[in-house]
């Protein structure tokens, strides 16, 4: 059986490696990677020091320590999804603005072209 620390350490290291590789390949911007690197650090932290979770759970009055882990994990994901939603909204706004601008500029081009054709006659 592999000790827990080795497993958690390997998991965190793999995640860090994956993120660095993605940055290297320009698949992930550095700004986004910060979040995931922080998550990897948390995995390493909780995995390598098993006593930490128990101590934290006792402090906040949770008797079954692993449930604290779930709470933290779900919270982390929830926040991330909310942030994604905010960014999606910003992008939608920009997309609409651009579409509106395209429509206006297209009309201007059409009008200018008609004007040119008429003056050419």
């Amino acid at each position: 059986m592999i000790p827990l620390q080795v497993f958690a350490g390997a998991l965190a290291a793999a995640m860090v490696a994956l993120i660095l590789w993605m940055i290297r390949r320009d698949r992930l911007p550095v700004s986004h990677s910060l979040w995931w690197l922080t998550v990897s650090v948390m995995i390493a932290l909780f995995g390598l020091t098993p006593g930490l979770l128990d101590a934290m759970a006792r402090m906040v009055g949770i008797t079954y320590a692993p449930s604290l882990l779930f709470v933290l994990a779900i919270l982390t994901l929830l926040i991330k999804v909310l942030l994604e939603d905010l960014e999606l909204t910003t992008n939608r706004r920009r997309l609409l603005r651009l579409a509106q601008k395209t429509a206006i500029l297209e009309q201007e081009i059409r009008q200018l072209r008609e004007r040119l054709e008429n003056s050419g006659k």
Partner: protein
Amino acid sequence: MKDIATTVILSVLQRAALTHMAIPGTIRAFSDTDAESAGARIIPIRDASADVIVVMPARNEEADVADVVARVIALGFKPVVVDDYSSDGTREAARRAGAVVLELPFHAGSWAAIQTGMRYAQFCHCSHVVTLDADGQHNPEDIAELLGLMAVGDAPNVVIGACVGRANRRRRLAWRTLRWLSGLRISDLTSGFRAYDRTAVDLLVSQKHTLIEYQDVGVLLCVRHADLSAVEVEVPMQPRGHGISRIFNSWSRVAYYLLYSALIGSSRRRRIKEKSG
């Protein structure tokens, strides 16, 4: 200990949010206050007679749009049809009838279409914008009545052409709920027949108001929030020629619409109260 963890998460979050926000800097110059900047770069084609433009959002209105456009032209106003990615011949029909046609490259929704028209109006330096449904529901002949209210001193910034008589049960329920939720004292909150002056247009074209979905409560709340005035005038409305109301033809749409308006109405209502208090 948990507090420390929360603080760490929050600070990371904050940083993530900041870095996300730092990116748009280059794009902003293009999107905001673009009427002025675009006006400086591209000389807008101005038409002195068209001080009032009539914006008609249209989505698959091929059957009625030409007639409405012709009537608007006959009245001496400049018709601008904003084609919300129709799949029929709306664009061609409107153009043949003599309208300026702005084509959206994807289905963007009715308010986004109207805002396109407003941005165009700003671009052309028009003084007033009238919005009208392209399906012949509103009589272009009543535009004068709306604008007439704006000609007098101490004129309102927005005039709504209201038709209380057209209401069926669904619509009446919606109106009553919306009035109650938003605190607006306007009977026909959902009318698409409206006139805006330049101050209102300048306010509503802003990027901040792009994500509104319908031209009704959300828009009126923005107007009121900016301390602009809105009044309504009773006008007759025709039964729709071919189109159907996209909101009031099914209960599920009404439910979504009410929920949407309830959220926008109640969340912005509080802000206004705080401001006045």
